[in-house]
């Protein structure tokens, strides 16, 4: 008899499980060897607590009442639960705190898209280490994790999440127009972006062109110069932040696989400063991401800067498989 499971969930059978386990162990070993202690948190939390981390909470799609009538939610990532854990359990510990995890998280899916409702993430959180050193350390750990997974072609995009928010403030764009411009930027809908920008009163052609051109700048450190050429105090501040991080990475010999990307804009509400995205040429989807969230811990009563990343374990596994077969083809 066939008994169905909900779309966006899946079983893992022994062959795959064996490989996932190997990947899991390799990643945790990298994290542990760099001083990141593994933690686990409950899959269900009070909705109120998760909402404290990400005000929009749209991401935790599964909410329900318990027997006392309290509203519970399934976590949609591990960053917010770990912020909660750190503030509660390590409030008096000497920073920085280094924690890592491999855990399942849950998000709403669009029907018939093969998207996962439940997925595994592996990542680290570095709490209490400011930019640029803290960011650089997290990138280093991420690079070691990618190497351990055999993804030596993977590239890390480094951007700045405050750039466009501050740029729009400088332009005097507020309210709905601001939201919809940020949404176009996040989706990289350049046609829509131009239309939205030119519809806003008070934005001239040059400002519109600056915004569009900025979002297309990606590459080595030369793009920072190009960005500066586009002018403005906000751009100057953002490029300086990126440059500091990049130079810190260079000093550590870890800038090799980092691509500076002024078009990066992650849609999670708690990011501030540096943002990261991970790509592998073998896969059309993003492998993971992260960045800084210097104001997140404060919402839980522990005012510390923080940074981290999360890799989608299943996608890393797919990329690993693609890279392996590519190497075999190359060898034969």
């Amino acid at each position, binding site marked *: 008899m066939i008994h169905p499971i909900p779309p966006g969930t899946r079983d893992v059978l022994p062959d795959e499980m064996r490989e996932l386990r190997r990947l899991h162990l390799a990643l945790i070993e990298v994290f542990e060897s760099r001083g990141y202690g593994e933690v686990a948190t409950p899959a269900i939390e009070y909705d109120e607590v998760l909402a404290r981390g990400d005000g929009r909470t749209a991401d935790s799609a599964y909410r329900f009442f318990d027997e006392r009538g309290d509203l519970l939610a399934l976590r949609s990532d591990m960053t917010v639960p770990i912020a909660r854990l750190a503030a509660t359990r390590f409030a008096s510990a000497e920073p920085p705190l280094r924690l890592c995890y491999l855990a399942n998280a849950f998000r709403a899916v*669009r029907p018939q898209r093969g998207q996962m409702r439940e997925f595994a993430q592996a990542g680290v959180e570095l709490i209490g280490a400011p930019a640029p050193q803290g960011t650089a350390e997290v990138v280093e750990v991420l690079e070691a994790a990618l190497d351990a997974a055999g993804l030596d072609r993977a*590239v890390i995009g480094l951007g700045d999440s405050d750039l466009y928010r501050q740029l729009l403030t400088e332009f005097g764009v507020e309210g709905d127009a601001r939201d919809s411009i940020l949404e176009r930027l996040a*989706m*990289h809908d350049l046609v*829509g972006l131009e239309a939205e920008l030119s519809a806003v009163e008070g934005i001239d052609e040059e400002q519109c062109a600056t915004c569009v051109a900025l979002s297309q700048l990606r*590459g080595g450190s030369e793009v920072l110069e190009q960005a500066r050429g586009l002018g403005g105090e906000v751009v100057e501040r953002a490029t300086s932040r990126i440059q500091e991080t990049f130079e810190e990475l260079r000093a550590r010999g870890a800038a090799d696989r980092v691509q500076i990307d002024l078009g990066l804009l992650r849609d999670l509400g708690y990011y501030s400063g540096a943002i990261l995205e991970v790509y592998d040429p073998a*896969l059309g989807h993003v492998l993971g991401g992260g960045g800084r969230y210097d104001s997140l811990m404060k919402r839980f009563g522990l005012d510390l800067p923080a940074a981290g990343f999360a890799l989608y374990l299943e996608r890393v596994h797919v990329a690993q498989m693609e890279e392996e077969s590519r190497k075999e083809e190359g060898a034969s």
Partner: protein
Amino acid sequence: MSVEVAGLSRAKVEGPLKLAVPRGALFEGTLDALDVAGIDTAELRGDSRALIFEGDDITLVTMRPSDVPTYVEAGAADVGITGKDVLLEQADRVVYELLDLGFGRCRMVLAGRVGDERLGESERRLGMMRIATKYPRIAERYFERTGRQVEVIDVKGSVELAPLIGLADGIVDLVATGRTLEENDLEVREEIVVCTARFVANRVAHKLRGAEVDELTLKLKAAVTG
């Protein structure tokens, strides 16, 4: 100074860029734009039934316009050309929309039978219109936005048929010249959106093959504005 472009060279992307070319109404316009951009399309213009045309710098892959976002989102094609109507209908597909190519201009419209008041009548007396369309999501969003309730009937073939034999009160469809509507005794009642051909890119290709994607974007931009 390998460090300068290390992020890009690290990726060592292989093979020519893959471009998804839409068959159908946008086919000619796409080939013309590619020609001006310096991409040889002679083979595609022939009688070949082949789907993949390999070149030195670029591989052209032909497919239905509505499949373009699917292939590009997955990274099976790095970049592609398709209609805004397709992108709007599949708004949940994550592809980067880089350029409005301007050709293939059509209007998405609400149409009803000439002189027939069924649309208004249904709305007034039943509180609801029945709308047949091949674009259910665009239709749903449009009526939601304009505060009206409709029953959207998803049809695959000639949508003009639906109001003629009583399946629906009106249709939401793409209109180029308006001749098909006219021939079927239908007329435009409301314009929803103007659609043209768009150049789209896969998210990862846009990052890891940035130089190639940007170069092609510039060439296409010059081709359609020049």
